């Protein structure tokens, strides 16, 4: 049966949490009610990346791109688009609300500078239908590996592609696989790291939700290459939709003979199993993850031995990130020649990033390596929300550092980000504006590391809490310049002496903000001032007697209460009793309450 129209409904977690499933159900109901059930297929897809404007609905073949759709809109979409063949102008994405000019998807700035390799199928296919993946050359890379290549050829192909790990460290993928091949032993394992605990990062989740088969195909190719017959996907229990989609995909792949015994009639057999992470950030570290897989406490182990030699149950194990694997599927399908033309000399391919924080278009983006930060944040991301001033962007999460306006024209590569005192990390980008306090942010990340430190080694266990205490002192106005030196000293020691990279990089956010914003640290210390007003203890509230009209609203909102004044007369705050809750500041409609 040929359908005239396809309606794609974004059912990624971002959109799902804003009613995408209801929209999906209403569309199907309406198609039935209006008697056009056979003319239209409604499909749930993965994330389109443009979450800021979600829920998103795309209609093919007209390529109508509808944003902020509500379940009530289903009736009109079916009636107009399917029955009458007209677009619903009202819902189309508009560049500019005033001119109401609508644009096609390829003209939306958000997509123009992007290049979708890893996310090529996200928002395009129905992730719960293996046929759609196969129709887009899915599993042809596996077929090529099994029937046209020896394991060593696959390794050469990966080497030629230049692919490096996307889980953080950027280790060459071919080398990892090659070491595992060469490690002695009959039994070997393939493990996918889908723990994604990095705050501000959700690329892996969206990739699996939108295209689970790419991961399955690549892990199977890996199994063939290193001689493993079992693979495990270690995924966070907090990702129910991704887990569900993976389960469906594994089942379908088994039915199609793409997983299980004698794959595609070859002599190679491979099975995949899903394991749920029970909530500990440190389990994303590879040795800790393997411990956790074995049913032990997820604590990091000293390296060497590396997992490639002694991994899961002491057997040689390849452990790669989700995005690394998905890149393998693309390379095996399109070839290393094609792939290695994307990116820079040492950083090949693309990278996905999750834009969050004070950015106009938060969402998922994918760009060629070497793209400038400015292009990502301003052209794709639409700049800062509410027209505020850009202050910095944190890449690499709690292990990374802040990158400031002066480095926005730096092309993004593994090396350039490290040189800037940050790192590629998994791909979270947290954008900050002038209203954010860098000291407060450094303290936030340090608190995260204190919580997540597994406590196994002293430098990290003790160092993170010492640094947190010092930052706390500074943000409450009790810091000294000596504390700044102490922070740098402890930070450096911890970086050197920690057992795993959690401790080894925990000081980065602090050290990089001290480097770029020393002035602001000194303001907190010397002047007891927080210029963004985020450090509560340093803020002083007062009322400007010229602006105050004496309406009394602030006094009524004050919980203490410590605001006094006659009706229609300027009010006054008793600072000695003020608890700095900020209620008066929020309440005043005349801008008379001043915060500094």
């Amino acid at each position, binding site marked *: 049966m040929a359908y005239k129209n396809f309606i794609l409904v974004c059912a990624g*977690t*971002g959109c*799902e*949490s*804003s009613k995408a499933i209801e929209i999906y159900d209403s569309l199907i109901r309406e198609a039935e009610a209006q008697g056009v059930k056979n003319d239209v297929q409604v499909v749930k897809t993965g994330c389109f990346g443009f*979450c*800021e404007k979600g829920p998103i609905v795309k209609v093919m073949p007209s390529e109508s791109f509808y944003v902020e759709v509500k379940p009530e809109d289903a009736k009109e979409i079916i009636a107009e688009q399917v029955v009458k063949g007209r677009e619903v102008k009202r819902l189309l994405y508009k560049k500019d609300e005033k001119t109401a000019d609508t644009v096609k998807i390829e003209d939306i700035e958000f997509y123009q500078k992007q290049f979708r390799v890893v996310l090529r199928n996200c928002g395009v296919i129905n992730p719960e239908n293996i046929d759609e993946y196969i129709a887009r050359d899915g599993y042809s890379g596996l077929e090529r590996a099994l029937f046209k290549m020896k394991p060593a050829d696959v390794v050469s192909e990966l080497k030629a592609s230049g692919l490096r790990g996307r889980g953080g460290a950027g280790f060459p993928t071919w080398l990892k696989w090659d070491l595992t091949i060469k490690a002695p032993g009959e039994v070997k394992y393939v493990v996918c790291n889908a723990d*994604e*605990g*990095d*705050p*501000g*990062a*959700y690329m892996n*989740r969206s990739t699996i939700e939108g295209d689970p088969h790419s991961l399955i195909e690549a892990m199977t190719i890996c199994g063939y290459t290193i001689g493993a017959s079992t693979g495990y996907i270690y995924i*966070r*229990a*907090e*990702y*129910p*939709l991704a887990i569900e989609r993976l389960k469906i995909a594994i089942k379908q792949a088994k039915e199609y003979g793409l997983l299980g015994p004698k794959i595609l009639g070859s002599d190679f057999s491979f099975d995949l*199993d899903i*394991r*749920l992470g*029970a*909530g*500990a*950030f440190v389990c994303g570290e590879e040795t800790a993850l393997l411990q*956790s*897989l*074995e*049913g*032990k*406490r*997820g604590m990091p182990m000293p390296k060497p031995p590396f997992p490639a030699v002694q991994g899961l*149950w002491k057997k040689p194990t390849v452990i790669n990130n989700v995005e690394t694997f998905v890149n393998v599927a693309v390379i095996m399908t399109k070839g290393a020649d094609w792939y290695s033309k994307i990116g820079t000399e040492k950083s090949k391919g693309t990278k996905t990033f*999750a834009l*969050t*924080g*004070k950015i106009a278009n*938060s*969402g*998922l983006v994918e760009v060629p390596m070497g793209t400038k930060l400015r292009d990502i944040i301003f052209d794709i991301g639409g700049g800062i929300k509410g027209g505020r001033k850009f202050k910095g962007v*944190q890449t690499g*999460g709690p292990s990374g550092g802040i990158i400031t306006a002066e480095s926005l024209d730096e092309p993004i590569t593994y090396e350039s980000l490290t040189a800037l005192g940050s790192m590629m990390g998994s791909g*979270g980008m*947290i954008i*900050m504006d002038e209203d*954010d306090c860098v000291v407060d*942010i450094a303290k*936030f*990340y340090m608190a*995260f590391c204190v919580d*997540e430190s*597994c406590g196994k080694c002293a430098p990290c266990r003790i160092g993170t809490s010492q640094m947190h205490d010092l930052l706390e002192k500074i943000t409450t106005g009790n810091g000294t310049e000596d504390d700044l030196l102490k922070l740098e000293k402890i930070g450096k020691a911890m970086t050197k002496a920690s057992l795993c990279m959690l401790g080894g990089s925990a000081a980065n956010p602090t050290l990089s903000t001290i480097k770029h914003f020393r002035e602001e640290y000194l303001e907190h210390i010397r002047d007891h001032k927080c210029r963004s007003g985020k450090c509560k203890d340093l803020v002083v509230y007062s009322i400007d007697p010229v602006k105050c009209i004496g309406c009394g609203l602030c006094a009524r909102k004050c919980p203490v209460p410590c605001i006094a004044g006659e009706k229609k007369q300027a009010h006054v705050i008793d600072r000695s009793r003020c608890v700095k809750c900020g209620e008066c500041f929020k309440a005043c409609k005349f801008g008379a309450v001043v915060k500094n």
Partner: protein
Amino acid sequence: MLSRDEKERIEAEAGRYPSRRAALSEALMIAQEARGWLGDEALADAARELGISSASAESVATFYELVYRLPVGEHVIQICDSVSCWIRDGESILDHLRERLGVELGGTTADGLFTLVPAGCLGLCEAAPAAMIDGEAYGGLTTEKLDAILDGIRGRKRGDAAQR
């Protein structure tokens, strides 16, 4: 006591691995599912199924955020306290929850309906501030939206959300 169904599920998990111990975190989650939390007895039962000591299982159980060793309410609210939510004023959502429920993080309301726990980044940052309630994702939270959600949940039983 574990039910027969729970025992069978744990047995099936154990059979998937070369070592039975590997199924421990799954076994703990299975033992936790019906009760919402993992008491000493349930923990010991699950450990026994896999042939490991309670002490050893305990050390694993306490390591993971999602294994609850204390009783929880009918509904568990995991409020994200991580960076993207925090930077988008997630704290005011948390304050509102504390106030409305009258509990601190880790606490359960007097009527036993809600337990409030903090969560590391839920991967919902594009919809920050975000939370998960009974395993279901909610984003773009405002205090009004949260109130509406909680009101809607009041009448619901544990596990209803999962069976969507």
